[in-house]
């Protein structure tokens, strides 16, 4: 359980609201028990009194208090349930907010290399699933056992009106039954979540391989062999799922049966007590009905145990995923975390000169992607570096922008080693257009402003004109406020690239790295932007990366990247 402790601590902030939610849950359960128990008491009492009256015996029964009680329980059960759901969903959403903020801050502290894993959809999806599971920790995992426990105490108290000799064993049996249901579900959850999650992930990986590698499988004649492998994975995954579902169904059925057996036992004991004259008929009927009403709060316990196990597994996975990457909380290990360093404005200090000495960067299974690379870029020089994709250009750019640490060698800007620069300095000096265009869902203006919070409307239109998007932006009914990205106006790849370029031009860096700046652009647009870029790049140092020289703006010098090293070629 200790894995859940940090998340339980997060609950502390909302203890008032969570306590209210738990009280409302208990009120719902108590009203349900009260409604059924009091109704049983009432009709038995009336039956006895009615029989006496019919026999001509003077008898009377106070009917207004129990009648009012029945009506009150009926209303409070509904109202308590409604407000309980409202309160608890609000708590869940508040927790979700805190969790997302916390997970994001920790992810933000990771280096690009560690985060490379998260670029894949599967890990990202798992991350959100884990966050979603943890937000229900209290509502679906912790509160139900607490409420069930208190409900059993209430029922035991009602039973003790009849006889403590019935209340004690029945209450004890109910506690044992409820505890077992919770505990066994938790244990099974512990075992099955790892196995099930593993089986499902294997199946998904197998499916991706089958689809992505279809050509290879068909060509080599290995398709049927892979089909068999996939069938095995599918069967394993389904069996794990069905096995868990079946075990949970059995557990729930057992729980129901056990609680009802206790109710039957209480009924027989109460009837015997009545026969002995120890209790009234009304109390004797109330007793088993109170136990039967327990089915509702106790019935959710197996699910709660499973949810707790899931939450724990999610906490473990999240911590595993995040632990690799940096310390928890706001404490920062190094100057590597940029925070809002981009706020530091001020004019550029002019072009810098770049020295790269014996740079080696290893990735994956020990592949030297950059292998002892040495390179100098003079202040104000525009250097083009070409090479096929995967040759190490982008890795070099990540190192040059401080996003990954080299294994060997060093980079200096104007004589200052990169490693000694503060994050703020580095961000201020270096601008890097990544090969992958990353726009954010938000307005067009949001996407530009993110590069320079103090930019004005005039600045936005200036850079949009530079990338030949001003006409397009003006044609939009909502102009700069147009929502782009998911669930908004979808930009074409070329348009998105141009927004990324415009965003870059809102900044005032000393060193600019452009990775395939014109990818996705047609020749005409590329020429227009090339002109604007050349103006903007004047008086800045630039490293231009591309698969071919023709794909890049005009450069002063050209090098070719091959086998992790830079090779001088004749100027083109």
């Amino acid at each position, binding site marked *: 359980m200790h894995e859940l402790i940090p998340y339980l601590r997060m609950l502390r902030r909302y203890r008032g609201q969570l306590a209210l939610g738990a009280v409302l849950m208990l009120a719902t359960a108590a009203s349900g028990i009260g409604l059924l128990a009091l109704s*049983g008491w009432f*009709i*038995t009492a*009336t*039956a*006895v009194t009615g029989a006496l*009256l019919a026999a001509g015996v003077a008898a009377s029964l106070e009917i207004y208090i129990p*009648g009012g009680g*029945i009506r009150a329980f*009926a209303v409070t*059960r509904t109202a308590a*349930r409604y407000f309980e*759901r*409202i309160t608890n969903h609000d708590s869940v959403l*508040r927790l979700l907010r805190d969790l*997302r903020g916390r997970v*994001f801050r920790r992810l*933000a502290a990771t280096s*690009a290399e560690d985060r490379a894993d998260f670029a894949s959809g599967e890990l*990202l999806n798992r991350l959100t699933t884990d966050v979603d599971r943890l937000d229900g920790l209290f509502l679906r995992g912790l509160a139900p056992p607490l409420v069930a426990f208190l409900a059993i105490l209430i029922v035991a108290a009602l039973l003790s009106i009849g006889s403590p000799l019935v209340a004690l064993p029945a209450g004890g049996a109910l506690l044992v039954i409820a505890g077992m249901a919770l505990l066994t579900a938790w244990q099974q959850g512990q075992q099955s979540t790892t196995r099930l999650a593993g089986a499902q992930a294997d199946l998904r*990986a*197998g*499916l*991706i391989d*089958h689809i992505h590698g*279809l*050509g*290879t499988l*068909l060509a*080599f*004649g*290995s398709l049927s062999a892979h089909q068999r492998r996939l069938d095995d994975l*599918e069967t394993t995954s389904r069996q794990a*799922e069905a096995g868990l579902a*079946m075990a949970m*169904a059995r557990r729930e*059925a057992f729980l129901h*049966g056990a609680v*009802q057996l206790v109710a039957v036992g209480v*009924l*027989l004991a109460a*009837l015997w007590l*009545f026969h002995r004259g120890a209790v009234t008929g009304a109390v*004797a009927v109330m007793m088993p009905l109170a136990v039967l009403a327990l089915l509702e709060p106790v019935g959710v316990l197996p699910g709660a145990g499973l949810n707790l196990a899931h939450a724990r597994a999610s906490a473990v996975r999240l911590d595993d995923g995040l632990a690799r990457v940096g310390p928890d909380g706001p404490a920062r290990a190094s100057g590597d975390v940029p925070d*809002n*360093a*981009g706020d530091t404005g001020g004019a550029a200090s002019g072009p810098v000169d770049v020295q790269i000495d014996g740079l080696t960067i290893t*990735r994956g*299974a020990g*592949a030297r992607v950059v292998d002892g690379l040495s390179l100098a870029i003079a202040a104000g020089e525009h250097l083009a570096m070409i090479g*096929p994709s995967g040759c190490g250009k982008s890795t070099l750019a990540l190192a040059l*922008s401080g996003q990954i640490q080299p294994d060997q060698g060093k980079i200096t800007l104007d004589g200052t080693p990169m490693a000694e620069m503060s994050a703020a300095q580095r961000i201020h000096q270096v*601008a890097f257009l*990544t090969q*992958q265009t*990353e726009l*954010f869902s938000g307005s067009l203006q949001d996407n530009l402003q*993110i590069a320079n919070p103090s930019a004005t409307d005039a600045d936005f239109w200036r850079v949009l004109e530079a990338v030949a998007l001003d006409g397009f932006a003006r044609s939009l009914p909502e102009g700069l406020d147009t929502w782009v990205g998911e669930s*908004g106006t979808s930009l074409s790849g070329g348009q998105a690239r141009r927004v990324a370029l415009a965003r870059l031009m809102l900044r005032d860096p000393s060193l600019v790295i452009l990775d395939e700046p014109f990818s996705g652009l047609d020749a005409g647009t590329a020429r227009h932007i090339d002109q604007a870029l050349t103006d903007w790049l004047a008086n800045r140092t630039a490293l231009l990366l591309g698969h071919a020289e023709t794909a890049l703006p005009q450069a002063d010098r050209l090098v070719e990247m091959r086998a*992790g090293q830079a090779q001088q070629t004749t100027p083109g």
Partner: protein
Amino acid sequence: MTGKAWLQAQRSAVALKLRLAAAYGVVEGLLIIAQAGLIAWLVHQVIRADQSPHALIAPALALVAVVVLRPMAQTLRAAAAIQASDRVRARVRQRLLRRIEAMGPAGLAGTDSGELAAKLSDQVDALDGYFARYLPQMQVAILVPLAILLTAYALDWLAATFLLLSAPLIPLFMALVGMGAERLNRDQFLALQRLSGRFLDRVRGLTTLRLLGRTEDAAEGIIRGADEYRIRSMRVLRVAFLSSAVLEFFASVAIAVVAIYVGFGLLGYIDFGPAPKLTLFNGLFVLLLAPEFFQPLRTLAQHYHDRATALGAAEQLAELDIEPPAQTGAGPSNPPVAGQPSGLPPGHVLAVDSLTVARPGRGQVIHVPALNATSGERILIEGPSGSGKTSLLEAIAGLLPAQGGQVHRHADSTRALGWLAAPPHVARASLADNIRLGDPDADDAAVLAAAERAGVMEFAARLTAGLDTRVGERGQTLSGGQAQRLALARAFASPASLILLDEPTAALDAVTERYVLDGIDALAAEGRALIIASHDQVLRRHADQIYCIRDGVLEHCGDA
């Protein structure tokens, strides 16, 4: 086919299981009635008829038996429903997989295999709740309340009428509230969707945020967005929860009304209808049945979101689940690609005769008047990117149907062909399993030998698990060069007499390039024919014949 119709169609395969599940549900309902009746009868006998509990051992045992049988029926019902869901999902997944295979690599070009795989795994699993819970419960929710109502009528028609009257009111009120919630949801939908996607969106763009130094802004934006999401969601939920409150309310009020009616009737305060004939037995019986009357509906309401989830998944799955169009272009003069040896001149591994290749959406890509390869021959096909080299290789491999002309390949076994794709395919499996894709029957020694020859061992030996190391997602990431060595090892492991290589030297480190070039020569020396598509001039030194693509036509450009 709409999602709804598609979902409906999937039911036929498991109709029997679903009916069985519903039947067990009804049995369970009948046991509930029996249980209520036995409890009421025991109470009546002891409290009103002054019987000694000792005289009632038989009905008490019957009650115990009913209580024991109920969980059995419950378990059997769950088993049938779980099996139904399991069977539907297995069938759907198999069928969709065959559909995808039928599309072939050419038909799949441009689709995201991750997304497609997610559909086959997650979206198919999203059907679970609908088949395992919602569908069986739908029938139970009609039949069991009906049985309870009939029992209640037999006991006291006035009390039963209270139940009956509330029954149609429930769906009415729920629909009214539901409509309100839906309108609210529609108004908020866009905002909610945008807000809920913000977290993932910002995580995806973290590199850019870090480069711009804006991560703390983004974190605050996520928190602000999540808070706004909460406020807007709560607006919707406050109305949506009313619909379940309506159900709760009727269930509670029905118990209260029945209790008070029975109580006053037993006291003799009601002279109307059946009330004077009420006894403790039928009064208690009806009271115990009242909550059970609403319970199946409440359960159904809880499972209602399963239906919505399944419908959402069905929309996407129905799109995939269509008969592939009959492959066109393969005229009667065009024999199957895995041609008969008779079509091959002696000593030849491949003979291509006036082949025309077209790609869906691109039209005719390349025409090949003639291309022959003999055993041990290295043929280089040169041409700039986009000139149709890959399409030609796919057509030779039979992955892309030829529009005209003939391809004759040596058909001595199903494993007559090897393929080095660009970029190389790396399966999310162990290194050894990756190599075994070249020959699923290869033993460990053969795999190791292939790994040695292709230079895989050079990096695999440094990994603790060696060739058993998992690669790809959730495993070690391979560099481009390491992946190419893996693909080369696959070719070494394969018994293929013809090997097709697509841009084998693109994006390699110097060591891997050496392995690939030596590998090409070694494969040829083993007597295999190689077709290499590339624009890398280095390969000219490793080719026996060179072909070029000019204006969409493959021409012989010389012997090396």
